[in-house]
């Protein structure tokens, strides 16, 4: 282990020990602070997990076909960087004018500050946006990296076939890495469990349909984001299902008079505290998180009973509506559906600095939302605290106009 990593783990051990004493049960995080705390604790667990022979595969995007990783008996862990802590380190190599998620992800690998990255046997990436795919070439110098070539669209037959071949290639790469055979039965079982996870996730999202919503959006976002660093899918599904039961029994906790906001755009994991909390501090409540971790992605199920299960898995992932696809009209349709379903008062699009695909697609999203008669505002931000004041003014002003 590198010195930097040793330091991080040692420092985290103290905090984690203190936290464990206070709350022994591994519950789902309810606040952003708890979420951060749990993530630190799982940093410690990952070392034990590896020493006990556990297989760990890092992934970086919702296009990664997780069933294939599950079927290899490996735990999939999300490595998307969500903190600006390692961005100065990343900028020693990468240009400054790049999306914070890319810089942060690379920065964690480069500075060896993320145990998940460090202990991953393999990192799986896709050719999504330009910044990511070129960064993966550099990441590949630090860690074994397998890149899936994601097509830029899904309407042409060769694009679907090409993607299937890529998913097959990932299966073979994992078989080589671990010296195993992945069977169709393994894949089908993984698909059943992942579908169950998707249904549990959707059930929790749908609690926000009530007026007032069941909970604060920051709570829901923090809880969901915890899924990216849970090694045991089954245990995570069960905890989500328990949370759903508890929540159904509990009175609604969302602010009653608050304006109902849908957040769309880039992955918001790194700005939960910045954008999400600012919305909820200024008279709004996030009722729908319409990013790649949200309903628009989770509602696609794998056809568990398909004769060719690997193809069914590949087909499911290609449906995901990310702005890297062209055309991407289904994303606008999905957002308009969510606006109705969650009785949304206003839409805030969150674009991470230098994310060209979402930033340009925002022009069409704005039209789609305004045609539905709902106010729309785009904010462009990163993981730093430099624009907190301006962001607060914009978000508060937007909510005042609703």
């Amino acid at each position: 282990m590198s010195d930097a990593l040793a330091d991080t783990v040692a420092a985290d051990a103290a905090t984690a020990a203190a936290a464990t004493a206070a709350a022994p049960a591994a519950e789902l995080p309810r606040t952003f602070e708890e979420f951060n705390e749990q993530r630190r604790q799982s940093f410690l667990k990952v070392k034990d997990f590896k020493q006990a022979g556990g297989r760990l595969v890092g992934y970086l995007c919702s296009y990664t076909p997780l069933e294939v990783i599950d079927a290899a008996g490996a735990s999939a862990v999300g490595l998307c960087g969500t903190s600006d802590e390692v961005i100065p380190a990343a900028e020693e190599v990468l240009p400054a004018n790049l999306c914070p998620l890319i810089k942060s992800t690379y920065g964690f690998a480069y500075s060896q500050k993320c145990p998940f990255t460090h202990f991953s046997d393999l990192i799986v990436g896709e050719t999504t946006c330009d910044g990511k795919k070129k960064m993966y070439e550099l990441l590949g110098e630090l860690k074994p990296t397998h890149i899936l070539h994601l097509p830029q669209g899904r309407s042409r037959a060769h694009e679907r076939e090409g993607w299937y071949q890529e998913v097959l290639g990932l299966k073979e790469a994992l078989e080589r890495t671990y010296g195993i055979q992945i069977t169709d039965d393994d894949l089908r079982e993984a698909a059943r469990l992942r579908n169950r996870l998707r249904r549990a996730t959707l059930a929790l999202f749908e609690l926000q349909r009530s007026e007032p919503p069941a909970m604060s959006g920051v709570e829901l976002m923090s809880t969901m984001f915890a899924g990216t660093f849970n090694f045991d899918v089954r245990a995570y599904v069960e905890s989500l299902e328990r949370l759903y039961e508890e929540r159904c029994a509990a009175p609604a906790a969302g602010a009653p008079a608050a304006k109902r906001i849908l957040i769309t755009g880039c992955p918001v994991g790194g700005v939960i505290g910045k954008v999400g909390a600012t919305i909820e501090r200024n008279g709004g409540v996030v009722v729908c998180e319409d990013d790649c971790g949200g309903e628009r992605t989770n509602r696609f199920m794998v056809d568990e009973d398909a004769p060719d299960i690997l193809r069914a898995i590949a087909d499911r992932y290609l449906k995901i509506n990310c702005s890297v696809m062209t055309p991407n009209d289904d994303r606008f349709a999905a957002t308009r559906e969510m606006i109705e379903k969650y009785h949304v008062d206003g839409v805030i699009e969150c674009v991470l600095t230098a994310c060209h695909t979402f930033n340009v697609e925002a022009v069409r999203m704005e039209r789609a939302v305004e045609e539905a008669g709902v106010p729309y505002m785009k904010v462009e931000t990163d993981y730093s605290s430099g624009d907190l004041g301006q962001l607060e003014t914009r978000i508060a002003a937007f909510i005042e106009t609703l």
Partner: protein
Amino acid sequence: MGSGEKNAGAASTRAATAAGPAACTAAASGPAATAAAAPAGPAGRAGVGVDVGSTATKVAVVDAYGELVYTALMPTGYSSVDAAARARECLEAAGFSPDRSGVRVVATGYGRVAVPFADKVVTEITCHGRGAARLFGGQGTVVDVGGQDTKVIRLRGGRVIKFVMNDKCAAGTGRFLEVMADRLGVGHDELSELARAGEPIKISSMCTVFAESEVISLVGRGEPRESIARGVVESVVGRVATLAGSAGGAAPYFLTGGLCDNAYVVERLSATLGAPVTTCPEARYAGAIGAALAALDLG
């Protein structure tokens, strides 16, 4: 530039270097002065708006009928807390103490949270929209060129329906003009007088820091000061017009904020937008007036 001198508040600020009660001046022009004598003046209900901007702090008071009865303007200086304290002194001196029953206070502007005597905090977007609707009517596009940001606010039926802000860089803000005026060794107002006599030179840098270097090279090349000044004004006006376009702005346009008494900027902005731009001396107080009206709503 003549309209600016009529505005007692603005004029007194320029004279007062150490801001204090010296900056407290009742609005001396237009309907405000008549309203001050109305029965609902200092003795009755009043709405107070305090707009703590990055450059200047503006205070406005409306009476129970929503008529503007008092304005004051002072530099914000280093501390928005101190600026708020000075605003309070002005209000007390004018008989609108925030402690008096019937007086309600709304704070706005970037320093809005630093006003301890405010009953409520409302963002400057809402306040500028409301203040402009009051001054110019509720239909149109408000352009507010502030010290640290520029806003374009679309109004329909007196309500804000859309806004865009340039709040990440100083391009197209009052700060850009200030920096360039300093670099050319002239005052704010002199800059526009110079510009009027110049041939436009293109200043291509959007970033204030880079644009300053560009101006230095132009000076070094021996370009006439008038032409550089013209280039500076055109740069700000062009940037503001682009922002207005991105908000889907449409005529009529209203200019609020610190540049409202700058006739040349108004003229150039109107030419660039291809539509008339209306302003008035009170437009400097649009945010504070909107806040004062919001304060009256608090009852």
